[in-house]
C-alpha cells in the first residue's frame, strides 16, 4: 500500500464505506435491468459529485480538490470493487486533458462545472475497436472537426467531448454535427459510436504528446478500477470456498484450490504496487510515466483476467447464472482489458520504451 496522506486515507475510507453502503453490486444490477439511456446510475453520480469526487483532479481555484491521480485511483478502486456505474473515470480522463492542455478560458469554462458534477465528459480517441492512438484520421478544418469514434465510454450522455485528431486533442461541446449511436457491450455500460461532421472544435495545447499523456492517465485510472474489481472478485471467491461444502468438507480445505487462491493473492499484491506506482509517477511528474502506466495496465489486465475467470470457475454452476454477480465481473473485466490498450499492446510499448 502506498504511503497515503491523512486526506487520502480519509478519502479512501469514505469511498469504501459509501460504495459498500450505498452502491453495492445490487445497485449496478438494478441499473442494468432498468437500462437507462445513459447507462449509468444517475443517483450515484449525483452523490459522488456532492462528495467532491468529480472534482478530485480539478484545481481548487476552479472549485475542485486538486488532489491528483493517486487520490482518484483510490476512489476508482473502491468503485471498481462494487462495479459502481458512474462516468467518473471517463470524466476524469477528459478533465486531465483540460488541465494539461486547456487555455485559461477553457479551464475556467469547464472545470468548475465538471467539479460540480454538472458535466459528464468523455475522451474519444479510437477509430476502430482496438486501441490504436497512432491511427487517427479525424481532421479539423477551420475549427470544424470530422471523424468517427468507436465505443466512446459515456458517449451516450457526454456534454463535452475531448476528441483526438491527427494533430492533437480538441474540445467539442456542442451537439451540432455530432451523432451518437449506442453500442451495447457485454458490460451493460455506456459505449457509443460518435460521429463528428463539421462539429465546432477548440484545440488544446500539446499536440500528439498530449494524446499520449491523456490516454496514459486514462489507462492508469482504469487500472485502479480493475484492481478494485480483482480484489472484490477474489474476496468473494475466497469467502465462497470457505462456506461451500462438497465431499463433507469446505472447498477451501482442498489444496488444489488453496494454491490457486495463493497464486491469485500473489498477483494481486504485485498489481497493487504497480498501479499505485503509475498513479504516483503521474502525480510527481516523473519522466517515465508511460513506462509505469504500461507496467500497471498490462499487469492489471492479466490479474483481473485471471481472477474473473477463476471467480466463475470456482463458483461452479452458480457462477454461470445471471442471478450471481460473477458474470458481471467477467464481462466488465474484458471490456476494461480492451480499453486504452490490452496487455499485449502495453507489453510491446514497455519493450520499446526500454529500447528493445
Amino acid at each position: 500500500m502506498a504511503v497515503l496522506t491523512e486526506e487520502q486515507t480519509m478519502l479512501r475510507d469514505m469511498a469504501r464505506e459509501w460504495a459498500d453502503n450505498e452502491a453495492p453490486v445490487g445497485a449496478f444490477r438494478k441499473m442494468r435491468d432498468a437500462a437507462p439511456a445513459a447507462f449509468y446510475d444517475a443517483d450515484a453520480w449525483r452523490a459522488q459529485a456532492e462528495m467532491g469526487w468529480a472534482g478530485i483532479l480539478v484545481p481548487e481555484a476552479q472549485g475542485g480538490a486538486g488532489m491528483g491521480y493517486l487520490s482518484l485511483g483510490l476512489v476508482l478502486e473502491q468503485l471498481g470493487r462494487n462495479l459502481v456505474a458512474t462516468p467518473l473515470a471517463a470524466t476524469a480522463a477528459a478533465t486531465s486533458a483540460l488541465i494539461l492542455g486547456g487555455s485559461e478560458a477553457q479551464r475556467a469554462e469547464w472545470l468548475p462545472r465538471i467539479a460540480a458534477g454538472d458535466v459528464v465528459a468523455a475522451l474519444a480517441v479510437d477509430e476502430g475497436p482496438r486501441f490504436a492512438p497512432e491511427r487517427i484520421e479525424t481532421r479539423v478544418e477551420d475549427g470544424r472537426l470530422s471523424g468517427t469514434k468507436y465505443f466512446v465510454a459515456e458517449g451516450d450522455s457526454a456534454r463535452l467531448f475531448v476528441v483526438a485528431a491527427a494533430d492533437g486533442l480538441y474540445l467539442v461541446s456542442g451537439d451540432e454535427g455530432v451523432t451518437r449511436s449506442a453500442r451495447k457491450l457485454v458490460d451493460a455500460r455506456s459505449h457509443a459510436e460518435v460521429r463528428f461532421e463539421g462539429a465546432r472544435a477548440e484545440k488544446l495545447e500539446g499536440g500528439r504528446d498530449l494524446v499520449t499523456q491523456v490516454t496514459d492517465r486514462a489507462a492508469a485510472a482504469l487500472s485502479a478500477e480493475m484492481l478494485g474489481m480483482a480484489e472484490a472478485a477474489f474476496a468473494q471467491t475466497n469467502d465462497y470456498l470457505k462456506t461451500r461444502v462438497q465431499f463433507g468438507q469446505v472447498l477451501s480445505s482442498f489444496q488444489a484450490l488453496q494454491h490457486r487462491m495463493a497464486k491469485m493473492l500473489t498477483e494481486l499484491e504485485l498489481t497493487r504496487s504497480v498501479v499505485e506506482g503509475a498513479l504516483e509517477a503521474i502525480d510527481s511528474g516523473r519522466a517515465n510515466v508511460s513506462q509505469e502506466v504500461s507496467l500497471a495496465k498490462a499487469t492489471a489486465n492479466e490479474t483481473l483476467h485471471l481472477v474473473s475467470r477463476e471467480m466463475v470457475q470456482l463458483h461452479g454452476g452458480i457462477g454461470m447464472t445471471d442471478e450471481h454477480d460473477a458474470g458481471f465481473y467477467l464481462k466488465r473485466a474484458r471490456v476494461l482489458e480492451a480499453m486504452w490498450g490490452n496487455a499485449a499492446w502495453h507489453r510491446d510499448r514497455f519493450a520499446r520504451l526500454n529500447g528493445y
Partner: protein
Amino acid sequence: MATAPEIDAPADPLGAFRSEVRDWLAAHFPPSLKGKDNAMSAVEGPHENSPEEDAWQAAMGEKGWGVPTWPSDYGGGGLSRAEARVLQEEMARIGAWNPIGGMGVMMFGPTLLEYGSEEQKSEHIPAIAKGTVRWCQGYSEPGAGSDLASLQCFAEDKGDHYLVNGQKTWTSGGQWADKCFMLVRTDRTKKHEGITFLLCDMDTPGVEVKPIRLISGSSPFCETFFTNVQVPKANRVGAEGQGWTIGKRLLQHERSSLSGGGSAAGRLFAQGTPLAPLAKTFVGEDEQGRIADPELRGRIARHEMDLRAFLATLRRASQEVASNQGPSATTSIMKNVGARLIQERSELLIEIRGLAGLGWEGEGFEADALKDARAWLFGKAVSIYGGSSEIQNNVIAKRILGMLDHQ
C-alpha cells in the same frame, strides 16, 4: 477445419459402402442445408425446423445414421466404426451434418444399451435414434454438484411405483425435455450404494420446472422440483442401489462427447471463426503478410498447435478403443484439454476483435461477433459441467496415476 480430402474410391476397402453412402446422401441431404448446422442449438433451445430440416432429420432417423454404430435392432445404423468414419467423411465432404443429437444420443442411449432391460431398450432407443424424444439429465442438486453422490432427492418404494420428492438443479433443457434420466436416493444409510437410476416423464404430475438465466443471456437450464411424483417401478434402470455405477458410466459418455470426440466441441471447432484471417483483418499485416502483432501471432500459433495435438490424440484414442470397450479414464484428460481449447479460442476471438468482440446486442456488430461473444460466456461452463476440470484432475490422479484419495 479443412474439408476432408478426396478419397480414392477404387483403393478403398470400403469403396462399395462409400459409394452407397454418397448416393444416399445425394438423394437425401438438401443442399440448401449445407453448413447450416447450429452448434449453439443445444444452448438456445429447439427452434422451428424448416421443412427441409424436418425431412433431413426424418431421413437420417429412418436410416439410423444419426447414431451410426448403435444396433439396428433398436433403430441404430448398425455400422462398424470404420463404416461410421466413412459416413462422417462423406458428410463432411458435402457439408452435411447430423440432425440427431442431445443428451439421449450423447449419454443416455449408450448407457441404456449397456444396462437397460430389453423392454426399456425397445421403448427408448428407437425414439432417441429418430430424434423424436428429448431427454434431460437430473443429476445435480443444490448440495450435490461435484460431490454428486451426496444427492438427497428421495424415492420411496411404494410397491408398484416410487414416490419421488426433492429438487434437482442446473437441469439443462429441462423446459424442453420430454423425459428425464435421474439419480435418486433410495437408501439414506449408504452414500453410494443408496443411489438408484430412474426414468421420469417430465409431464408426470408433481414435476415443476423453473428456467434459470445464464451469464450469456440464454436460459437453457432449470431448477426442477419433484413433489410426490409417481414413477413406475418399470422405469428403474438396473437394480435398486446400482444407480451410482450406472450413473458414473453415463458420466464417462458425457465426458467423451464433451471432449470433442463427440458432437458439441468438435462442431464448434469445425465451424468456428478461423483465428488467423480474423487477426489479419483486425490487427493488420506486416510487410511480409504476417499478423502485425507478433505476440498475438505466437499465441494463435500455439493455440492452433495445441488444437492439432488434441485432435490427433482424439483420433489416436478412437483407434485404440476400436475394440469397442467404451470410454476410458483418459476421457478426463481429453475433456480438460477440450474445455481449455474452447475457452482459449473464445478469449482469443475477443482479444482479436477488441471491443467489437464484446457486443451484447443491437446495432454496430457483426452477427458472427455477437454469436462468438455469447459462446465465450456460455463456454465458461464447459470446464464446470460434466464434472469440472478440477474433478477430472482428481479422476486422473486417482484412476490413472493411482494416487491416494484424500476424501
